[in-house]
Every structure is written in structure tokens, then in C-alpha cells.
């Protein structure tokens, strides 16, 4: 499935795979798609999530502690794809687990699992030639991030190389919920627009329906991560899918 945002703003929902357990993540993913998520980001648990704030760090720590690994996330992706052929599915990872598997075997497996694309937090465009070649060969979309600190020449390169959508980071900082959206956010999206017509999804700190509405005024989609992971943290595994679905439905109301 190509990544699409038919309704504005689109919704990209992040889940740390395997938190609280893989079966529950699958149920949450399906519930989120049914509630209106256009794209799911399946986060691969990693021991050293240096771009993440406390909420996602804790989720990763729990999942790593349970032994959840990249191959498990690929299996999960395949299971979700089997149930929901039309949902957008992105694998979200730090680079090292992917390197450990090998770039080429990873891309083969990601394609076979029905993933549409991949987002690597610590992969910048300059270092990405091997990665992009492997992704292209297997028809996968490499999603790149742009930051408020990125100068125009970098934004141009990022816009050129990203596929599926461009992930705009709303503020300098790590992932995590916040009460207000940074002023940096709309300025960044405007700057990116000079270089591309590809969809732009804004994330980091997007936490509620009001934020989503604001994001919809200038971007194509909103990425909601820590707010979802925090709901999962507070719910029992039985409650989590319905709790996430209700939250997702409320985001675009």
C-alpha cells in the first residue's frame, strides 16, 4: 500500500512494538487503523534510544527487557498487514538492529512483511546511499526527518530523498508530550514547502486534538507518539486497544 493521507490532517500513530507484549501491540495497531490512523509506525525496541524522551524510553526498556527484537517486529508487521491490507505501515528503528541483520536482508524481510517504508532515527541523508539503494531495490520508502535547525540546503536534500512523507520535527529536542506546539513547527513546514510537494507530517510533542487541528492548518499529517505510548502504559493489556482507539477517534473530531 502506498502511504496516503486522504483526510486532512492525516494521522500517523507511533507504537513501541512489544509494549506491553507483541499480541497486544497487534490488537492496538488494528484498533488504531480502524479508528482512523492512516499510517502506523512500529517502533523497534532498542537498548539506547537517545532521541527519545522518558515515555518512549520506558516503553523500549520494557520491550527490550522482554526480549523483543527486530525479527519479532517484522513478524508483527506481517500479522497486521494480513488483517488490514490498506493501512500504511512504517518500521521505525535506530540503525544498529538493522545493521546487525544486514541492510539487504532487512529490506527483503521488511518487504515480505508488508511494510511500506522505514524510518531510521539516526540515519542522515549524507550517510544513506547504501540504505537508499537497498530500499529502492525492494520498493520501500525511506522516510527522512527534518529539524528546525536544518539549514535550507539540508532541507532540500531531505525533501529530495524522503519517500512516502517527510517527517518534520516540531522542536529541538527529544520525543515527549508537551502542552503547546513550538513556534518552530509552522516555520519549518513552510521552509520545507519551498522544496517539495511530498506530504509533510509533523511530530514531536503533538499530543491532543487541538494540536492536531493546528497541525492541519499547515501540514498534511500529524504524528502522535508519546501520548499514545503513555495511554498504553497506563492501561491494562486488555483495555489498551479500546483506549487507544477512543483517543485516536477523538484526535480528528
Amino acid at each position: 500500500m502506498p502511504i496516503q493521507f486522504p483526510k486532512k490532517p492525516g494521522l500517523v500513530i507511533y507504537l513501541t512494538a512489544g509494549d506491553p507484549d507483541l499480541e497486544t501491540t497487534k490488537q492496538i495497531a488494528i484498533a488504531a487503523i480502524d479508528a482512523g490512523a492512516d499510517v502506523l509506525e512500529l517502533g523497534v525496541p532498542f537498548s539506547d534510544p537517545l532521541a527519545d524522551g522518558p515515555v518512549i524510553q520506558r516503553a523500549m526498556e520494557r520491550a527490550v527487557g522482554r526480549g523483543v527484537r527486530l525479527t519479532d517486529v517484522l513478524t508483527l508487521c506481517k500479522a497486521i498487514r494480513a488483517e488490514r491490507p490498506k493501512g500504511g505501515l512504517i518500521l521505525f528503528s535506530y540503525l544498529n538492529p538493522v545493521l546487525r541483520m544486514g541492510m539487504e536482508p532487512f529490506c527483503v524481510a521488511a518487504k515480505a512483511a508488508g511494510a511500506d517504508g522505514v524510518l531510521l532515527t539516526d540515519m542522515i541523508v549524507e550517510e544513506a546511499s547504501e540504505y537508499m539503494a537497498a530500499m529502492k531495490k525492494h520498493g520501500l520508502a525511506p522516510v527522512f526527518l527534518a529539524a528546525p535547525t536544518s539549514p535550507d540546503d539540508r532541507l532540500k536534500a531531505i525533501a529530495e530523498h524522503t519517500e512516502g512523507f517527510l517527517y518534520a520535527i516540531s522542536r529541538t529536542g527529544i520525543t515527549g508530550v508537551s502542552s503547546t506546539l513550538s513556534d518552530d513547527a509552522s516555520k519549518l513546514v513552510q521552509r520545507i514547502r519551498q522544496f517539495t510537494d511530498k506530504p509533510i507530517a509533523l511530530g514531536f510533542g503533538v499530543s491532543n486534538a487541538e494540536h492536531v487541528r493546528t497541525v492541519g492548518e499547515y501540514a498534511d499529517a500529524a504524528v502522535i507518539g508519546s501520548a499514545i505510548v503513555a495511554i498504553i502504559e497506563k492501561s491494562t493489556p486488555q483495555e489498551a486497544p479500546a483506549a487507544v482507539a477512543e483517543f485516536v477517534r477523538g484526535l480528528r473530531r
Partner: protein
Amino acid sequence: MEHSIIDPVRTLGNGRFGAYGGRYVPETLMAALQELERAYAAVREDQAFQGELAALLKDYVGRPTPLYFAKRLSESLGGAKIYLKREDLLHTGAHKINNALGQALLARRMGKQRIIAETGAGQHGVATATVCALFGMECVIYMGEEDMRRQELNVYRMRLLGAEVRGVGAGSATLKDAINEAMRDWVTNVRTTFYILGSALGAHPYPTMVRDFHRVISREAKQQILEHEGKLPNAVIACVGGGSNAIGAFYEFIPEPNVRLIGVEAGGRGTALGEHAARFSGGLPGVLQGTYSYVLQNDAGQVATTHSVSAGLDYASVGPEHAMLHDQGRATYTSATDTEALDAVKVLSRTEGILPALESAHAVAEAIKQAPKLAKTDVILVNVSGRGDKDMGILAREMELKGAGA
């Protein structure tokens, strides 16, 4: 910079050491890394900057450090002559200040008033807190809670110097976790903050810049050994945590094919993953904290926990230039166990009256193994990267110094 024929950024290299190094960071940091790269490239050739650094290294830090012939140690081992490069005599007690001072001068040039750093053994934290006091800068140090416990004296020193020490409880609460937290701070405050990274690690330009600031160790040592012995040493030995003292001690000897370069990693208390920090025997190439190098990890690519009696060597990856030297066979990497390091502390203390840091003791332990195998005319140069005052708590416990014996 536009007026220069040679682009200083290009002369700095691309941050690759063979296949290793590079830049694997969140995009938010890229502009800062590029700004740092340009600023560093400019001062690298700048007479005024280098002159100011040299003057402070001499008058404030105490360079040059002596190269001392350890006669009693050498005689007791009955082999090669052992020379000690005395980085332990530097202000603040370890080589770390060479780099902290260089980076702080650069931060001042760049107009950054807020400094952050990570620390393992606390020596880099103390060095950074010291130069921040010297220049009147704000200073925040990230340190694993386990390291705060075992290097408690350095925590007090940092606070006394006016730094804020922030404990990190994640993971095994050691150096790797402190670096994660420092990087999170940097991503958040990147516009105002300079990150003084403490070893030859991380994304470009750090491994090159940190190496350059420690290169003075081998520059002095090469000249000094020629004065003492009229020849180059057979081997240079240094301990390897992130690899900063080792790359500094090796660098000027790399073009000398007859000088063996030996890096000593932490063998800890066993060979199982999690029990040591011997990256070259137990690790595989991977990316951790911005750079591609050898990383201790499991088969899923999760970074392993590590163990060493010395906080400064207790880290899952290693500087990328060492990874290259390893693969080229130009340097060899061995390890010393906790016990061997503790024994080496005692041996050096009692033969020479020199109390080495537990990190440096790993290098001394290797010299103790090598010297008897060599001829009396052979020469070994050991970099004593720091002094052991900070380790007295650990030494008291481990060696049962509290009683009459030991």
C-alpha cells in the same frame, strides 16, 4: 573561510577511518555538528588559538609531562626498560584536561556559554568543570548513578568547582547511559550549548578533534624517548576506554613501523557478554552514539551491558580510529582483567611510588606481561593516563587496606 584556497573543512577529513566513523545522529544535531566542524577546522590552523592553547597547557595544566624511566619496576620484571609517560601529573589528575581545555577554548570562540559533558570515572567531568570555572561558563555534567557511587570523590570535586552533576539511572547507569542523556540535552538545547565530549568517540568531527587535542602526548613522548634512549620504543602501551589517551599516545608513532602499538581494554571479571568491556574480542561493527565502530551487542543488535572495575573503561563501544588501526593490524588490542589491574596498581605503587588510576593500571598490567619477554635493551613506553587518588574507595575495599595486611 571563503578566502582560503584550501578548504579547512576538507583538510579535516570526512570523519571516516577506513569503514569506521561517520555521523549517525538525529537530524536536529546535524547543523550543530557542521557548525562545530567549520569552527574547529578554522582554529586548527589558527596561530592565535593554538598559541593560547599551548600557553594554557604549559602554565595551567602543567605540560610537558615527564617521561620517567621506571627503573625498579623494570629491574623487578627482568626484561625491557619501562618508561612511563606521566599524564597522571597533569592538573586535575588525568589526560582528559588536554581535550577539555581545547574544546572549552573553541566553545568560547563560538560564543557558547553553556557547556555539557558526560563522564565515566569522573576525570573528564572534573576536567570540564575545571575549565568552565576558568572561563566562567555554565557547566552540567551527566554521570551514571553507578559511577557516581564508585567515583564519589570526583562528584564532590565537580560540585565544588561549580558544576551541576546530573545522575543518570537508565541502563547500567554507567558511561554509555551518561552519553545518551548528554546527547538528549544537546538535542534539546543545541542552539545555546556546546557538548564537550570526553573521548575519541561520537559523530564527526569529535573523534578527529579529540585525537588532535591529545596528540601532544605522543609528540612529547617521541622526542623524550629519543633524548633518553636515542631510539624509538619497541612498544607503546595505553589503556582503551573510548580511546582518547591511547590515540593521543599512539598517534605520532603510527608512521613508525617498528613501534608496536598495544591498546588494553577492560577484561573485567570474565569473557561472557556483560562481564567485560573488550570490544575487539567480544564485539562486532555497529553504530552506537553517532559513530560506526566495534560495539558489544547481542545478536539482535541490542547494545550489551559492560563491566569493569574501572569506570573509565566500562563502555560498550570504542573510538572509530582504533577500529581502523585494529583492522589494519597496525595496533593490537589485548585486555587486562579487574584482578590484573588491581595487582598492577599495587606493583607500581610499591616499586615506584606511583599510584596509577585503575584505567591506567590496565596498561601497566600489560607492560608487566610484556617486559619479561623482551631483552634488557628493549624499551616499552606506557601511558599513565591518570592518577589513582579518585580510586581510593574502591582500592580500600578491593584490597582490604582497612586492616593491617594487604
